[in-house]
């Protein structure tokens, strides 16, 4: 009996929506990496000597390092000499001074992505820094933020305008030689966002960076640094897309967060880099180091991520809980379909007294995808009364995908309380049939069940992002029922 409306394997797969390419003249250096290239980038950015030195030091470290191979992902070796380390849209002068000077083609690109940079069209309450390949092309609502004393600008601009802040905090959370990709980023990073919230200030709007890789054969190596001074609060959003290309592109970013006494940072990501096609060809390698430092007492850092894109995702947004009573949170939804691979999780390092951390991780696998959660909870000897709660749930769709959980727990203080819960479930045929018997289509039923599964994470996202995340999930898993 033909009870099924369609064979799921032939269900129309929705194409990657953001896969277009913007034909724009750009300054791109020839592929290859050496000290000259680094000096070129530094010169292009008119950087002070200390920063060039810092880059070169990182580069020399990197040369000594080996590419990590411990993650549960498989890919051919990357030829780091075949990547261009700098690509920027050509601008008439040194760079756009205001939105009016930004190339209209670029504005159009962001319009297409649903990120209008014209301030009057923007969602009220969200300031955006747009990063196109290697450079930041526009930052909106700057004046309004400046009134509150908030600094929000591209990284390059921060180096020029606020060198003392950059010098004080750069690499203070993720040292230049922290790991292979962080070292590479430290050597060649080209731009990114910088944000400083002064004492006792609640940032008046959501801050957002939108990353776009456009040029081919380039890597994107941006750096984000957010400093929340005593008693301040900021909510920060990050979104990413790239054109569809057959070759793999490397994205190796570093994000550093610093929360001083009583400060709070909420960092949300919706990552939708191009995942490659159905056969696993192309797509972004997303090898990112994200770390937050709860440096002050009663500080709080919260990571929320929805990872739907990239061919390979390798990232562990972490919290160093140094301040007494500080709080670290990690809420994650990682979706993999077709041949995507994800090895993602978090590290919660408890150092101060009465520190608390919460980890909620939801992994969804479909197609031939592999999805791993890897998490470390470390309670150091001095961390009296530390508490951690971890919940890792995996949802499998079909029988060709995999879900893996690698929890590491190190407790060196007897007063620690660490809880770990993990579940793995399959989208049940019973659940699907139940919804369908009520008149709901198979796709809507899958969406409903998956969104239900992710609810605890979605509720942590700011409103507009939560809606976008739900839609993305639908697109990513379209046709994935098996």
């Amino acid at each position, binding site marked *: *009996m033909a009870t099924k*409306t369609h064979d799921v394997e032939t269900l129309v797969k929705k194409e990657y929506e953001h896969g277009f390419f913007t034909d724009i003249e750009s300054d791109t250096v020839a592929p290859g990496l050496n000290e000259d290239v680094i000096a070129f980038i530094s010169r292009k950015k008119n950087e002070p000597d200390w920063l060039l030195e810092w880059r070169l030091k990182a580069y020399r470290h990197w040369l000594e390092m080996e590419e990590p191979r411990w993650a549960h992902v498989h890919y051919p070796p990357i030829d780091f000499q075949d990547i261009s380390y700098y690509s920027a849209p050509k601008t008439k002068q040194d760079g756009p001074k205001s939105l009016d000077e930004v190339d209209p083609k670029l504005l159009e690109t962001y319009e297409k992505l649903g990120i209008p940079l014209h301030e009057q069209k923007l969602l009220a309450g969200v300031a955006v820094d747009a990063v196109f390949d290697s450079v930041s092309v526009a930052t909106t609502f700057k004046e309004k933020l400046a009134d509150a004393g908030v600094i929000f600008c591209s990284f390059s601009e921060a180096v020029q305008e606020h060198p003392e802040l950059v010098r004080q905090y750069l690499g203070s959370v993720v040292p230049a030689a922290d790991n292979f990709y962080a070292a590479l980023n430290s050597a060649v990073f080209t731009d990114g966002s910088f944000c400083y919230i002064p004492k006792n200030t609640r940032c008046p709007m959501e801050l957002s960076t939108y990353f776009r890789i456009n040029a081919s054969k380039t890597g994107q190596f941006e750096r984000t640094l957010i400093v929340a001074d005593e008693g301040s609060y900021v909510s920060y959003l990050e979104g990413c897309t790239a054109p569809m290309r057959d070759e793999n592109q490397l994205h190796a970013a570093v994000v550093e967060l610093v929360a001083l006494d009583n400060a709070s940072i909420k960092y949300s990501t919706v990552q939708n880099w191009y995942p490659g096609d159905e056969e696993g060809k192309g797509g972004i390698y997303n090898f990112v180091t994200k770390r937050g430092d709860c440096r002050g007492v009663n500080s709080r850092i919260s990571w929320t991520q929805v990872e739907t894109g990239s061919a390979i995702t390798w990232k562990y947004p972490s919290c160093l809980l140094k301040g007494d009573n500080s709080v670290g949170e990690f809420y994650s939804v990682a979706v993999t379909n077709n041949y995507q691979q994800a090895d993602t999780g978090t590290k919660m390092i408890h150092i101060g007294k009465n520190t608390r951390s919460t980890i909620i991780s939801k992994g969804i696998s479909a197609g031939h995808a592999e999805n791993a959660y890897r998490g470390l909870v470390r309670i150091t000897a001095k961390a009296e009364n530390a508490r951690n709660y971890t919940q890792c749930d995996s949802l499998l769709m079909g029988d060709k995908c995999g879900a893996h959980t690698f929890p590491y727990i190190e407790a060196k203080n007897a007063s620690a309380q660490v809880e770990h819960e993990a579940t793995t479930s399959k989208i049940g045929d019973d*659940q699907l049939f139940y919804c*369908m*018997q009520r*008149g709901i289509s198979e796709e809507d039923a899958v969406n*409903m069940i998956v*969104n239900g599964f992710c609810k605890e994470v979605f509720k942590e996202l700011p409103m507009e992002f939560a809606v976008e995340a739900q839609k993305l999930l639908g697109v990513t898993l379209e046709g994935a029922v098996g």
Partner: protein
Amino acid sequence: MLNIKNLHVTVDDKEILKGLDLTVNAGEVHAIMGPNGSGKSTLANVLAGREGYTITKGSIDYEGKDLSGMAPEVRAREGIFLAFQYPVEIPGVNNIYMLKAAVNAKREYIGEPPLDAVEFLNLVKEKVKLVKLKEELLNRSVNEGFSGGEKKRNEIFQMAVLEPRLAILDETDSGLDIDALKIVAEGVNSLRNRDRAIILVTHYQRLLNYIVPDQVHVLFDGRIIKSGHRELALKLEEKGYDWVKSEAAA
């Protein structure tokens, strides 16, 4: 409304229904009784269009349409409702959110505009009284943490909201204590009307004390071997299934 002729159904290549005939008219309530393994639940699942049930012979005609090629969600929108024997839990999916999606999928199918939140809530408030379902259950995840009785009441509540033309109640009485059984039966009785047909699949005649059927059928070894009125159920209770079996064999 429903016309089943010489229906043969296999599950995993094993023939379960072996030439079943059944005619149900609008406004009627039919009880299908029979021992374990006779094919009662198979019949319910085949009517709802569950995967894994293969029709090898015969036909099912519903309102002049051939059901065999119709997707389960389309059957639902055409007015077929199955009250599940074991309603599943769907964590994180709000009970009435799912129901609203169901109502609006059906409305879209029949060319009516979707109900907005207020209209839908009014409908829910009206129907929830029928089965005395605690209102707090409405906003929980579908069937999650519901007691056995609450799950069954939730099924009848969904039936009340979706207003099907043909409702199949698969062992809705199983696992209910007498008070819960009465509440469910009252709910079902209030949904009886001239345009709606109901098929009660049950082991026990107990349910039929509360929902009085127009016809009673005995299903045995994949066929209906005896049909009658209310009295047949009472006789079955008194004499057991062996009595019909031997009569049918004779």
